[in-house]
Each structure stands twice: as structure tokens, then as C-alpha cells.
């Protein structure tokens, strides 16, 4: 699950073309494996690339693509080894460097990712690199610097929705809610179906007290990704604050049905029930919430889903 989430982060961060580009200059052997990878035939791609490496153990493009294949297949430790080997064999290859940094970022090896990525600012400056550096800064809780890099990405590629989204996310993390709203709205201009922009815009509008605006964004978010429980939870909060108590109850129930393991969903349902006067039902939800928290080592639910970075 964790691997899936982190792969999703990487997919969000950048278009997959970067990896494709990186292999175009590879050996003819590895080129054979590329379509297999692209069509998610990971086992076949892996067999093909292992064959390539038996023929030429020092072929960086085979190592690189095998790393990407293994990463996609969830064999992350081996993936890292091959991606590292590719860069060792072809240290000047910016694409290999980029992909290794991306891999490290996605596996929470932020410090090393940062070290690997830094030379890209010289060898491959551009929106992809700025996005990567910004992302690493976000993960390092250097939101101010993250905003700087995302702003550069936006300047370099103003039509890229994800750059605007991430700039908004950085502002959001800094408590600069008005700036975040502008960026999220710009994201949605470029890509109306951008789920996370809808979600985050809804969350910021909630914080600003624009409950109706938040509700509208969150309704749209739940339409785009009906399986994402947090969207239902925030929608419930927006609806309740807008005076739509029945709708709020329905949305809170939907949040729980989408993810009953998240204590925050039970909290929201409990609060709606409590405020509706159904104290026994609310108490049951609160008890479930507390039980879940105890199971989570009495800890707190992370306020940020890693997918939302």
C-alpha cells in the first residue's frame, strides 16, 4: 500500500515522459523492454532486461529501465540498486540522475534525493527539475523554499497544472491561504478534473469561512474521486456549516463507508450526529474513533495524506 501511495506521488509529481526520454538513448536491448514496461507487463520487461544485462552487465540504460520496472512492480530495494548503478555507470546522464532522485524521493530518502538532484539545476534546469526540488523542499518542511521552486516551475511552464497545484500547496502549508486559493483556481482552469486541487481548494475555503464555496468544490471533488474518503469528510463539514445538516450526515456516512479505518471520518460523523442531537449514535462513533487512535499507538492521524503533496 505504501509503495502504491508513493508511486502515486511520483506520478503526480511529473509526467512519465521523463522516464521514457531517458531510455531512448539506451541500448537496443533495453529498447525492446520499453514497450513492455509502458504496457505494464513488468514480469516480461524484467526478464528481457535481465537478459540484456547478462549480455552487457555494464549497460546503464538496462540498469535504469530495470530499476523503473522493479519500482513499478513494487520490488523497491532492487529497484534502487539498479537506478544507482545506472547513474554510477553514466554519471553525466541527467535523466538517470533525475529518475534516481525521483525514486529516492518516493521512498522517503529525502536527504539523498536532494544530494542526487542538486546537480540537475546545472545540467537540466527547467520545470521538471524545479518541481522535483520543490517537492523535496516540501518534504523537508522547507515550505518557503518549496514555494520558490514551484514559482519557478510555474514561470517556466505556466500551462502545467501540477506546477500551479504544488505552488498552491506550498502557500497553503505556509498559511498563505489567499495565495493558495489563487493557485488552486489556476490549476482548475488548466485542468478542471484535477482532484487534489478541488480538494485543497475546498479545504482552504472552509478555513476561510466560505462554506458555500467549499461545498461546491468538494461536491465536485467527490464526483471526480468518489472513493477518496477525506473529500466526503470535508464536504460534510462544509455542508454542516452551510446549514445542510441532512446532506452533511449523508456525506459523513459516505466518508466512513469509504474508509472506516480513519478515525477522522468517525469524528466527523460523530460531530454531525452529536449536533443533530443523536447522542447515542454519536457516542458510538466517538468510541470507534478513540479505539482506532489507540490502535494507532495513541497517535494522531497525519493531517496530510502523502498523496496530497
Amino acid at each position: 500500500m505504501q509503495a502504491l501511495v508513493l508511486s502515486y506521488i511520483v506520478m503526480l509529481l511529473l509526467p512519465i515522459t521523463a522516464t521514457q526520454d531517458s531510455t531512448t538513448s539506451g541500448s537496443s536491448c533495453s529498447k525492446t523492454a520499453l514497450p513492455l514496461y509502458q504496457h505494464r507487463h513488468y514480469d516480461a520487461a524484467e526478464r528481457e532486461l535481465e537478459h540484456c544485462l547478462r549480455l552487457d552487465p555494464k549497460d546503464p540504460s538496462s540498469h535504469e529501465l530495470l530499476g523503473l520496472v522493479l519500482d513499478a512492480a513494487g520490488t523497491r530495494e532492487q529497484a534502487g540498486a539498479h537506478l544507482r548503478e545506472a547513474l554510477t555507470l553514466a554519471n553525466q546522464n541527467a535523466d538517470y540522475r533525475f529518475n534516481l532522485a525521483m525514486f529516492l524521493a518516493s521512498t522517503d530518502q529525502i536527504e539523498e534525493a536532494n544530494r542526487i538532484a542538486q546537480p540537475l539545476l546545472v545540467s537540466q534546469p527547467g520545470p521538471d527539475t524545479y518541481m522535483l526540488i520543490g517537492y523535496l523542499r516540501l518534504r523537508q518542511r522547507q515550505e518557503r523554499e518549496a514555494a520558490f521552486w514551484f514559482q519557478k516551475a510555474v514561470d517556466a511552464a505556466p500551462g502545467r497544472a501540477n506546477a500551479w497545484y504544488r505552488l498552491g500547496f506550498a502557500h497553503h502549508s505556509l498559511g498563505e491561504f489567499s495565495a493558495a486559493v489563487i493557485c488552486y483556481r489556476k490549476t482548475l482552469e488548466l485542468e478542471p478534473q484535477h482532484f487534489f486541487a478541488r480538494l485543497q481548494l475546498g479545504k482552504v475555503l472552509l478555513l476561510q469561512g466560505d462554506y458555500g464555496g467549499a461545498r461546491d468544490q468538494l461536491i465536485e471533488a467527490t464526483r471526480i474521486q468518489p472513493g477518496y474518503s477525506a473529500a466526503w469528510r470535508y464536504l460534510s463539514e462544509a455542508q454542516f456549516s452551510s446549514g445542510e445538516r441532512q446532506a452533511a450526515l449523508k456525506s459523513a456516512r459516505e466518508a466512513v463507508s469509504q474508509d472506516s479505518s480513519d478515525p477522522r471520518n468517525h469524528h466527523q460523523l460523530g460531530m454531525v450526529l452529536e449536533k443533530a442531537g443523536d447522542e447515542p449514535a454519536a457516542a458510538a462513533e466517538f468510541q470507534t474513533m478513540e479505539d482506532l487512535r489507540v490502535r494507532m499507538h495513541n497517535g494522531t492521524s497525519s493531517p496530510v495524506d502523502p498523496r496530497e503533496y
Partner: protein
Amino acid sequence: MAGPRTSVNFIDYWSWVLCLLAAVCVAGAGISVAQKEEGPFIELDAGKTGIDFVYRNGAAGVKEMIETMGSGCAIFDFDNDGRPDLFFVNGASVPSLQKKDPSFSNRLFRNLGDFRFVDVTNKAGVQGKGYGMGVAVGDYDNDGFEDLYVTGFGSNQLLRNRGDGTFEDVTAKAGVAGSGWSMSAAFFDYDRDGLLDLIVTRYVQYSLGTGPYCGDAARGWRSYCLPDQFAPSTLLLYHNNGDGTFSDVTHQEGLDRFRVNGLGVRIVDLDGDGWPDILVASDRTRNLLFHNKRGHFEEIGVPSGIAYSNDGVARAGMGIDAADVNHDGRPDIAITNFESEGVALYMNQGSLLFNDEAGPRGLLEPTFGWVGFGLRFFDYENGGAPDLMMASGHVLDDIDRYRHDMTWAQPIVLLHNSNGRFSAAPLLGSDQEAKKVVGRGLAIGDLNNDGSLDAIVTTNNGPPVVLRNEAAQRGHSILLRLIGGPSNRDGFGTRIEVHDAVGVRILEAGASGSYLSSSDPRVHIGLGAQTRVPEIMLYWPSGTIQRLRGLESDYLYTIREKSGLVTPESRVPLRR
């Protein structure tokens, strides 16, 4: 081509970062300085005030968590001369936890008037023992002199005020030494028997020298741990037996069923039923609300909505206070939290239900970037509405190693209340530039009896910040000093209803709230342009109801529960 372009990028980058950092500094201080906009306070230094206290955390490099959490202060009149005095809690040597070096002594400063203070610590005998944290003030024996309860790591101290300028340590006799790591405390009369009881929050279960290595071991950066590494604690509730002793009723009242990382405590009657409720701010565990049901408690933090954020997340609750922010007759609750969380403002919707409206009411953005500790509602311009001050400072003294845009020292944030909505206001006037400090405790009081409220902010490993209120545009006010009997002599828990041009406002007598600190127990009422208050109703804990009509502004009134009369002798003009 890539090379030069990148080097330009880097120059841009660092210029930009420097600009940003400067902007952050200006913004941080800007809340206080803001382009020559005059703030209401003047910061006074020790040379002027004589308050040469410096809090010492005793840090010796091992990064014991106790070093970063202290400490508090109290504003109270220990000698009944009408001038509020100051008490500061100090740390101790680590790991011995001894105060052998006098620089670790707690300190008591007698107020000589006009912001001049003199150290009377040794004469008063309040140097203290062990590693101190917080302080509560109350006249637990109803003898007319305010006593002190000093919390700390390991054990606490009850210091009885003898009335002759000295205090005696009655901890053992009273049975209130406690154990573990005590933080904030408050005196209050939970069963309304006329005797002040005592509530104490405790933080995590912690032993020196046994904590994990927190920080970045690879780089050798050992840092203070966060509370998640340790088990949470229970509160302590002591019932006053009236014979100089207390009984530990924590278990009896069911408070030991709730284990949290307790920090701030505020006593307030949230539902107007006359029984004081207990609010506890808790660090990364849920905040607690003990509803007082005629002398017994029911914890309702979760269903009330104050336990977590609106999104169900346990935040880093530190300081806590309550006031009727929007004049609807119901006290609302503010809680300071960690950076990127902002202050919470739980608006009281009635029926003991709350909703965090910090964002819509303007509190979130000005407080979002800082680690908040002490906070206190108070009407700094005597306009009739509770404004808010927050002390802030990071818990990691090396936070700048991990986050380039974050510092240990942070601003004192002042927030102005306009019709229930807050906005950042400049702190200092007279061209003073606000310094960032590692803020912890915060207490409010009228230190020079001029009718305007002053502030003391304690700092970790530094001197306190003394802020004299010089607001140029301030309105009129009155101060009420309550003397209870049959209610507790301090009149803590008395509900005050002010009926005037502002409408109907509610206040409550007490000294609790903020973080580790105790504020001036006198009741301050801002009146704006009014020179007379049409009506003030007092609802004493004993059930006594008093009506005060036509009080003239700019006086300190001493109100006795028994007589209730306002005589010429019972009022003293405030030196506006």
C-alpha cells in the same frame, strides 16, 4: 549555456530566500512594528523595572525535554498594598534538579509603583525547590492573603502566605506535592463550598537520562524529543478540606481515566450553570473538557468538539484561555498550537457544543507560522471586546538546522478583536522594535493601576518581556477586586454581567488560563467612551447576587460579597 544560467538561478534563489527571510522577519516583527504604525505597548527593560530575573533551563547538552518547556509567572498582590507584584518560576541544574546556584531561584518582585519593582525573594522565602514549571495563585485558606502553588518536575510546592511578607512551605501538611511532571495549575472552587480546590495538569511520563536520542543522529544533532515518544499522564485534582489539608480526589472524580499530555488549564463556567468547568490543552493528545455537574465531573471534550481540530486531528495544544469573543453571552475558547496549526478558536454554540472558527474569525493566518504557548484574552484598548495576545517560541532550540525559515525565538503576537473578528495589530509603540523571544508563559494585569492592562511574557532561558500598556486611544475602564465570603475569598468563579452601551457582556473572576501562568485576579472591564456603567450583576459562587448600578469609570472598586455596597472608601481612582 546551462552553467551561467544556473549560476544566475542560484543568485536569484539566494536573493529570493534572503528577501523572504527578511520578509518573514518583518512580518513576524511586523505584527508588532508594521511600518511605523504605533502599537499600544512599551517594552521596559530591567534597568527601568528592576526585574532582573533570567529564567535558566539548566541545559547541559543532553537535551532533556524539561529544559524547553518552562516557565511561568504570576501577577498577584502578595502584600495587599493594592499594587500587583510579580512571581517568576525558575529551572534548576540538570540532571541534579537542585537550585544550589542562586541563579536558579524562583523570584518574587514587590511592586513599588510606576513600574519599579524590588526583589523580595529571600525575605519572602520563595526561592523554591527543584525544577520549576508553573504557578497558580489563590487564597486557599481564606485568610485574605494570596498563596502560591508552584509546579515542577518531580514535585510541587504550596507556599502559604503568612501575611507578613513571608511564605511558608506547607506542601507536606497540605498533601499536594503531587508527582511526575506537573505543568499548569489553577485554584478554583469546584464544589462551591467556599474553599479553593486545586487542579494540576501533568505532561508526559518522563525520567531524566532515559529518553531516546531524538534529532539527526547521523549528523550528531541531538534535539529535544516531541511528546509522542512518551506515555501521557493524568491530571491531579485536590479537594480543599478547609483545615489546611487537601484530599487527592483525582480517582474519586474520575479524572484519572483520561491520560493526555496536559499543559494549559483554564477554569470557566461554559454553560452558565454556576459550576466551574475545567478545560485542559493537551499536546498531541486530545484536549479535555470536564463539565462540572454539581460538584462532579463528566469529560465531554470529544462530543463538545474541542478535543480535536474540526478535521479530527489532535493538535499540539499548549496554552488556553476563554472569553466571550462575540458578545453572545457564552465564553469561547482559544488554544495555542504548533506551527502550521495556528490558534484554535472554539466558538461556543450553546449546549456545550463548539466549532473551531479560527480561520473565518481571522486568527489562523497571523498565528499559523508560530509555535504558540501562553495566550490570554484581554481588552488592551478598553474598547469593550476581548483582544488576544500570544507568546510563541519553538520547542527545538536548533530548529533552524532543520528548517531554514523557522527560528527558536518567535514574535509576541497581538490580535485586535473587532466585532468578533481578529486581525494582527502592532505590539510596540514609541519607535520600539519588537524582538523575537522564546516565549512561554504570559500573564496579564494592570501593573500600574492606570486602568489599562499590561503584560508579562516569560521566555525560555532568558529574561521576561515586560510590556507597559500606553495605548493612546484607549477608553475608560474599571477594575473590580472581589472579596468573597461565604464564597471563596478571591471570589473566583463569580460571573460578572456588564449591562452597558456595548450590550450585555459576561466575564468571570479568576486567575487561570494561558500557559504555566497566573494573571491579575482583578476583573477588568473596558468601557470605551462610557464614563459610567449602567449596571453590573455579580453572581457569586455561593449564590449571592449583587447589582451594582451607575459605577463611575476609571476607579478600582473593592466589592465585598457580604455587604455589596460601594462606599467612597471602597473605590480608588485609577491613574489614567
